[in-house]
């Protein structure tokens, strides 16, 4: 087996992990009927919170925690404005991204040029040394494993638990959920905060592990890709996981292909994941019953008890 395969596959894991976090979080948010377009803003604030705390304290644990809190704090702002002050979700989400980019630049001013040693790898004796499979399955940092666990937990939570049922209920018909006595906005706020924390973790992964440094705008559009992945996955967590790895895979494989002199236009390959998203969008919206099954019916609609 050529030497470059294992590093290439490892790079795919790194490239996909931040997308997995952000997309999983957004799925829960959208399942509860809230459309938060501010993923990019929450990610970048998570990235600077994590990096700032990491560099200042030297603790990876605190850094990761700070990243999640940073993302959740941004999400709280969004939730407060859209759920309680009934501001428009699309406009507020976009504003959250713009605000997040500017705010993180302000916070990060003193951290430009600093470096963080990166997250420790969880090596398992013997298992990590198995050729090919060892390095692929073992020896990653904690966030990579956490992303996989998060996918499993969110899938289970949404489909098998009472909590999941509640979330889906407020997302499908908030009046019905309200009329049987559930607090729509409290449930939505919890989902929004979860989504923010996950986006924050995605951002933390960028600034702590992927490229352990801080530069303004370092998320470079990954929040938008995560948003596209949610639709691509038709609001199913495991599909989002698959989509993130497909996206990461295509990106990395095209970089390797260029190195080997395979002549495919890089612009074409860069476009592929977006094309796939559009195709999926067309497919699910071409059949109205399928669309109903997938997209939460109350997505993007504000709730007020007066109706």
């Amino acid at each position: 087996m050529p030497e470059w395969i294992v590093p290439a596959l490892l790079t795919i894991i790194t490239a996909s992990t931040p997308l997995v976090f952000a997309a999983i979080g957004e799925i829960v948010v959208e399942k509860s009927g809230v459309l938060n377009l501010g993923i990019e803003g929450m990610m970048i604030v998570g990235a600077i919170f994590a990096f700032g705390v990491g560099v200042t304290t030297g603790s990876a644990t605190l850094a990761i925690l700070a990243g999640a809190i940073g993302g959740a704090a941004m999400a709280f702002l969004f939730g407060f404005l859209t759920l309680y002050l009934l501001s428009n979700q699309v406009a507020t989400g976009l504003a959250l991204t713009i605000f997040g980019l500017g705010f993180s630049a302000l916070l990060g001013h003193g951290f430009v040029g600093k470096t963080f040693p990166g997250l420790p790898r969880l090596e398992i004796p013997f298992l990590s040394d198995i050729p090919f499979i060892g390095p692929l399955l073992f020896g990653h940092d904690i966030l990579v494993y956490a992303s996989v666990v998060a996918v499993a937990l969110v899938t289970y939570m949404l489909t098998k638990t009472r909590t999941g049922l509640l979330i889906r209920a407020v997302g499908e018909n908030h009046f019905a959920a309200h009329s049987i006595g559930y607090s729509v906005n409290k449930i939505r706020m919890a989902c929004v905060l979860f989504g923010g924390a996950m986006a924050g973790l995605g951002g933390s992964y960028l600034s702590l592990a992927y490229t352990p440094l801080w530069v303004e705008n370092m998320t470079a559009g990954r929040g938008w890709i995560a948003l596209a992945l949610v639709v691509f996955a038709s609001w199913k967590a495991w599909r989002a996981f698959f989509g993130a790895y497909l996206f990461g895979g295509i990106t990395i494989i095209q970089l390797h292909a260029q190195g080997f002199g395979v002549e495919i236009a890089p612009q074409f390959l860069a476009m592929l994941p977006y094309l796939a998203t559009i195709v999926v969008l067309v497919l699910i919206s071409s059949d109205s019953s399928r669309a109903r099954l997938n997209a939460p019916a109350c997505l993007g609609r504000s709730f007020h008890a007066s109706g």
Partner: protein
Amino acid sequence: MISKRVFLGALLSAAMVVGASAGQAAEKKTKVGFVYVGPIGDHGWSYQHNVGRIAIANTFGDQVKTTYVESVPEGADAARVITKLARSGHKLIFTTSFGYMNPTLKVAKRFPNVKFEHATGFKRSKNVSTYSARFYEGRHVVGLIAGKMTKSNIIGYVASFPIPEVIRGINATFLAARSVNPKVKIKIVWVSTWFDPGKEADAAKALIAQGADIIMQHTDSPAPLQQAQKNKVWAVGQASDMVSFGPKAQLTAIIDNWNAYYIQRTKAVLDGTWKSQDVWGGFKSGMVQLAPYNKAIPADVVALAEKAKEGIFNGTVHPFAGPIKNQAGKIVVPAGQNASDKMLAGMNFYVEGIDGSIPK
């Protein structure tokens, strides 16, 4: 170096800050204004222009007052910002991104007594000068070092967009590396962005996995250099000294240095000798500089690099000295001649020996 500015500018327009304009200058002070496309904290392009502004402030002290506006998007906003600077009594205004070209000329027409300096453009007028830097001179020197330092004989190059400036850099690097190491090859990966630390790092990882032991970049973030450090291979910094991101990996860095030019032009305005001109400066003008060499580079290689630098400085060495063949084997620069500035400015071909083709 064009579209990154559009991109960054658009994204960061919300964070636009008008800085350092507090307090009216005394009548005697000459006001010098700067318009940046990115934030001064980008650790690259705008950062270096701001270093130039500070140099003016330090050199002329009480004689001048400098002002800057950062993260100005190219287009209508730029015209407004430039007009505001011109109207508020600035006598010399530097507009430091390619996309400010037309707004600068438009505003300059309305303010004939204000002098304008536009970076990287090609349109001039009575009160608009243009200036840019011959970064390929730096690429020549790092190409020589790379050719000598590589063990695997593979140079990895993280490239942004296939525009003449980037292609010129690749060719200059390769020609120099080949001249000292006939076995050397160059692997180029286009990332289709000026700035995406993650993707730039991925490209560097791909190149390293495929055997490159020297990473060069024509993108803006320090991520490729950081990957080189992590994987214990060499790298060359871009735009500013990036040594803090890869103290062991950075062989040197090609630095944009506008200080001398900015000081000289400010002085010309103070003396009343300012004239519209077009400057494309390299080592000689001080616009292109190299960061201190890595201590691990052997003395003979340092000597080779210094000799080349001196030669370029004196005009005895030209990075594009003939004979140069294109990939088809056709001679494009005959022996005994150097490539003309016109050819360099529009360079759209790889030289012989580079594998693959330029993305269309």
